[in-house]
């Protein structure tokens, strides 16, 4: 039988080994895309890039920024994500706060109605027909209203209100004649900044990465969000209008794929470190059965 210390040492060696392999598997594709996006298109095409950029250039980025549909896509996505997240947060708070109050008669009924939709839904076709009959097809409304509340987020928020805002504080404010809405705005929301940050991240990233609703509800290309523009470049291979000469065009349309991935992902990855310390908390709250 090996000694205790030997066992520890061997085990730590194993842990670090597996952890390093995991780290490499996760990071390598990301580093590769980043390097290729700054590389000479010819080096990208002949496969001489393994880790670091070859023939440093900003040309692929210049081509991306010359592309008009990327600019409109970016602007549209910024609008959908901004307005959409605002609506998300407002509606989620409006539902989560009353339902967090144990003194509200009938809260179980509302809670049941809301939770039930997590497990059964009308599905794609009836929802599509509804949005259509509401006249939202080909309008920005279709990008904001049908997804106005994510039930999971609502439950996380309600659990936060229930567990992290002292009831005594709310009761004494109420006894002092503070109305419920004032109580929510003046006392509860200022104490809920971490969960609000998490919600902004969850909803915001959701909007940033959304594409399917745009695919079925939007016809006009001027309304397309960034992800649909990306889909044309990355998946449908339609970036022909970008390059100049024939062979150069083929090379550049490959190279631009890397830079467009970076350009479209950077905003999300930039805000991520700032909110990162909050979201672990957010997911943890979600795991508490409420």
């Amino acid at each position: 039988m090996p000694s205790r210390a030997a066992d520890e040492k061997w085990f730590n060696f194993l842990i670090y080994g597996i952890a390093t392999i995991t780290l490499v598997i996760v990071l390598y594709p990301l580093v590769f895309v980043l390097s290729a996006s700054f590389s000479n298109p010819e080096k990208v095409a002949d496969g001489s890039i393994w880790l670091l950029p070859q023939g440093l250039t900003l040309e692929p980025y210049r081509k991306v920024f010359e592309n008009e549909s990327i600019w409109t896509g970016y602007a549209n996505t910024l609008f959908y994500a901004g307005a959409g997240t605002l609506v998300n947060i407002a509606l989620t708070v409006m539902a989560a706060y009353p339902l967090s109050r144990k003194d509200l008669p009938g809260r179980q009924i509302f809670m049941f109605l809301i939770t039930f939709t997590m497990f059964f839904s009308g599905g794609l076709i009836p929802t599509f027909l509804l949005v259509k009959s509401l006249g939202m097809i080909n309008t920005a409304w279709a990008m904001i209203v049908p997804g106005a509340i994510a039930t999971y987020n609502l439950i996380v928020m309600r659990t936060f209100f229930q567990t992290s805002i002292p009831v005594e504080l709310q009761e004494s404010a109420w006894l002092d004649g503070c109305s419920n809405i004032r109580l929510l705005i003046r006392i509860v929301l200022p104490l809920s900044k971490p969960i609000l940050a998490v919600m902004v991240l969850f909803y915001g990233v959701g909007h940033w990465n959304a594409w399917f609703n745009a695919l079925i509800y939007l016809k006009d290309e001027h309304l397309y969000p960034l992800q649909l523009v990306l889909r044309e470049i990355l998946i449908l291979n339609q970036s022909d209008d970008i390059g100049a000469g024939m062979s150069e065009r083929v090379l550049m349309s490959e190279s631009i794929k890397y830079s467009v991935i970076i350009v479209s992902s950077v905003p999300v990855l930039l805000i991520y470190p700032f909110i990162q310390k909050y979201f672990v908390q957010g997911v943890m709250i979600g795991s508490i059965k409420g």
Partner: protein
Amino acid sequence: MQGKLLRRMLTRYDLYLLLLVPMVWYIVFKYYPMYGLQIAFKDFSPSQGIWDSSWVGLKHFDRFFSSYYFWQLLWNTVSLSLYSLIVGFPIPILLALLIHETPSRKFKKWLQNATYMPHFLSLIVIIGMLNIFLDPITGMVNRVLAVFGMDPVDFMRKAEWFQTIFVGSGVWQNMGWGSIIYLAALSSIDPTLYEAAKMDGASRMRRIWHVSLPGILPTIIILFILQIGSWMDVGFEKALLMQNPINAERSDIIATFVYKTGIQEGQYSYTAAAGLFNSVVDFILLLLVNGYARRKTESSLW
């Protein structure tokens, strides 16, 4: 007594007022589509509307179940979900244990932040990256195969590779995110349990087995129930993005069929029936697994 309840409600009228808008939203965008599901039993025509279209009983279900593609769609859906479950479910648990056991705090942080990151990339970017890395000529994977003298494989257009690529990239993207909830559960285990096990001479491996795993078992069960409850719903958007005419024999699942035949071809009643079949199977699975978990263990959704 009743007067008291009414007074309690009246003094809190502003809370109901707050609830009003979200509840209207739930009724319109969640419950009205459930009402709209009746078109699965009708011949829906847009001019007549949902209510006035004529009833046709189970016609659409009959047609769907007896169509030549039904069994293939069902098998593609069920097997993709099973594959995702077998591979995708345990890996976040293993990753959480790995992170938990990593002695260096700094390394731990690195591991966490790096593995969470891909979760924030869009599906379009993920499929774009798959296209790049798996390209038959310029792709990294085929370049490595070439080094070993193997023939290039057009992975994204091979039906037999579809499920593996689907599940593998899913693990790459979501294992870190999925591990957060287990890490939270691990950190709430009473440290004295580890101390006691150590005193008894248990090795690190045995401590994981006898302390860590039982400690996070309730979380595992809850997440397992949730995953079973969305069995038929597995990664529809991703399957659609990865689909091409060549791999369709494996990548066509019920949900992508509903999209193509319903939204694109306008066969609303027929595909509403197929969609309802999906939802009902999921709902029944959820009830069964939850019921079983409630009887056999102490953890269940309700």
